[in-house]
């Protein structure tokens, strides 16, 4: 890892780690009477850790120029491992938080284990930890292969990957201490947000710099999706997190928006986080790994372009459907509703394009659990985008909003689509990255597939049932015109579904653990094998010189 860096890159890594450590020290001193100090200490440790990591290999010989004839996959490998580690952590917290709703005593009287604190650990852990690391890892792989060019340098990918994980650690540890901006999916406080901007801009620059060096005339559509993901998430993140800290020595900040504007900005962010973090990036994954694994080109390339722009134009306007029946002007609600309904067209175009690609390869889907993961992901993508458009209609929303139906919808997308396409892509990618013929155990992939599918179905059906019951109980009036059920009545009615949901989530978690074991054993298997086909490996076009050389 370090020995692959040039001397200049090692020096740069030490300088940046030192700078990070100094920032951490400053935060720790300025925030010594505040929770900010704890985060300062974490940043300081990260910086010192980085310095020691580089110094330990600093005097190893520099890599030869031969490396420039290969793709640079080390960050992708580490990203896959980090992604699976976060999957297990994030899903463990998910099962815990689900169990908490069925058995509230599971907080064990600890403040940090209360629902409001461990729930964001779950959401950030799975979305940013698991999903984000998988996106970074796969994007570096897809970017290099589709442009047939090596990453522009060897330091910035590490900066992005490790810097991003520092953000995730700061986020999760902050929640447990009670630090939050109270904005859903944007909970981390101002200093973490600023750090993420630096990391994210570097990420985007890697993309641009690699594309500049591409040997392929046309930029493959998967890269469009990845770039939309990076660019739009940057815009969303900056606008939604504009806030003023009460002092530089305090973790607490206040948003610059107020009232309904704050709500609108938050849900413009929130829905586009679903659109560009949880959809566009993973569509990029799908448009590369699904045709690759099936051995067939995408059904219609033109359709993929049209659906790309459809999704990009329309998702931007859909956020206000989160604020039906609020102080938001009626026309803005209608706007969001309309765009949400029209969004079904590009969404189904993508799902249909994926399934039509598999037409003629169904025997492979039957035999290969990896491809089946991707197929099921496309089906769930189609299902949950249909459900989303439907739920965005104001009249439907009056029943579904604030109920578990929303939770079920999100998990149909998150488990059925995002996690399934990610696991499918990881299973396809791991043998390529570690240069082995196949994964350690295809049987365990099969086991994982059925655990994941049954877990998702149990989860989603439990939440559909409880959500609709909840929604109906909240709007049932008796003869005298008052509510027929108290809130606690609806809560009691939910109990069996909450248990079922916990079971579904537990199956999904076990699946993720099986996947981690399988990938880990594949890595061990690859290490024990001699590096036989090093010359046969996939390499970039021409001998690409590094900038500055």
């Amino acid at each position, binding site marked *: 890892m370090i020995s692959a860096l040039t001397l200049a890159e090692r020096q740069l890594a030490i300088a940046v780690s030192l700078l990070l450590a100094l920032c951490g020290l400053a935060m720790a001193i300025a925030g010594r009477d505040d929770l900010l100090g704890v985060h300062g200490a974490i940043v300081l440790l990260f910086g010192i850790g980085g310095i020691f990591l580089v110094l330990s290999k600093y005097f190893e010989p520099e890599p030869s120029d031969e490396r420039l004839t290969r793709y640079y996959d080390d960050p992708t490998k580490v990203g896959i491992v980090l992604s699976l580690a976060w999957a297990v952590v994030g899903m463990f917290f998910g099962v815990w938080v689900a169990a908490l709703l069925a058995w509230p005593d599971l907080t064990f009287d600890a403040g940090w284990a209360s629902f409001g604190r461990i729930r964001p650990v779950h959401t950030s852990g799975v979305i940013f930890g698991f999903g984000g690391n998988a996106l970074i890892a796969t994007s570096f792989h897809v970017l290099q292969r589709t442009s047939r060019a090596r990453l522009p340098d060897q330091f910035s990918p590490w900066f992005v990957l490790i810097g991003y994980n520092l953000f995730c650690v700061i986020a999760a540890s902050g929640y447990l201490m009670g630090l939050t901006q109270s904005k859903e999916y944007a909970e981390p406080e101002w200093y973490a947000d600023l750090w993420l901007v630096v990391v994210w801009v570097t990420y985007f620059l890697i993309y641009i710099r690699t594309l500049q060096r591409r040997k392929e005339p046309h930029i493959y559509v998967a890269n469009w999706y990845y770039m939309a993901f990076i660019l739009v998430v940057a815009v969303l993140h900056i606008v939604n997190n504009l806030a003023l800290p009460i002092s530089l020595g305090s973790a607490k900040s206040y948003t610059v928006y107020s009232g309904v504007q704050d709500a609108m900005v938050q849900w413009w962010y929130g829905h586009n986080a679903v659109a560009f973090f949880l959809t566009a990036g993973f569509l990029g994954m799908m448009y590369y790994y699904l*045709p690759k694994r099936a051995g067939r*080109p995408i059904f219609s*390339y033109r359709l993929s372009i049209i659906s790309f*722009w459809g999704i990009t134009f329309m998702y931007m306007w859909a956020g206000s459907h989160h604020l039906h029946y609020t102080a938001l002007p009626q*026309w803005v609600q209608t706007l969001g509703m309309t765009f949400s309904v029209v969004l079904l067209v590009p969404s189904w175009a993508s799902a249909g394009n994926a399934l039509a690609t598999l037409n003629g390869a169904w025997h492979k889907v039957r035999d290969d659990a990896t491809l089946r993961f991707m197929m099921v992901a496309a089906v769930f993508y189609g299902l949950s985008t249909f459900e989303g458009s439907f739920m965005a209609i104001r009249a439907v929303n009056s029943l579904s909003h604030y109920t578990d139906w929303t939770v079920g919808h999100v998990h149909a997308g998150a488990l059925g689509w995002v996690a399934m396409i990610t696991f499918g892509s990881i299973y396809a990618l791991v043998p390529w990255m570690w240069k082995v013929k196949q994964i350690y155990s295809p049987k365990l992939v099969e086991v994982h597939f059925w655990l994941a599918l049954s877990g998702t179905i149990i989860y989603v059906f439990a939440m559909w049932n409880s959500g609709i019951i909840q929604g109906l109980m909240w709007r049932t009036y008796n003869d005298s015109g008052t509510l027929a059920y108290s809130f606690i009545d609806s809560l009691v009615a939910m109990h069996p579904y909450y248990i079922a949901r916990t079971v579904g989530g537990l199956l999904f978690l076990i699946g993720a653990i099986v996947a981690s074991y399988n990938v880990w054993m594949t890595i061990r298997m690859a290490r024990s094998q001699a590096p036989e086909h090093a010359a046969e*490996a996939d390499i970039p076009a021409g001998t690409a010189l590094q900038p500055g050389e």
Partner: protein
Amino acid sequence: MGLDHQTLVAFAKSWGLFYLIALAIGVLIYAFWPSNRKRFDRAKKSILDKDDRPGD
């Protein structure tokens, strides 16, 4: 400045509509432009090249 809520709403409702339709037409023209066909065909097949080795 007379930039009140009503002005913004009028702007959003008119120009917002026009530019989205214009963009949609632009995308359709790009996707279906006959000379782009070869490029797209190459793009969708090239990712399947053997181990994406260069020079193929």
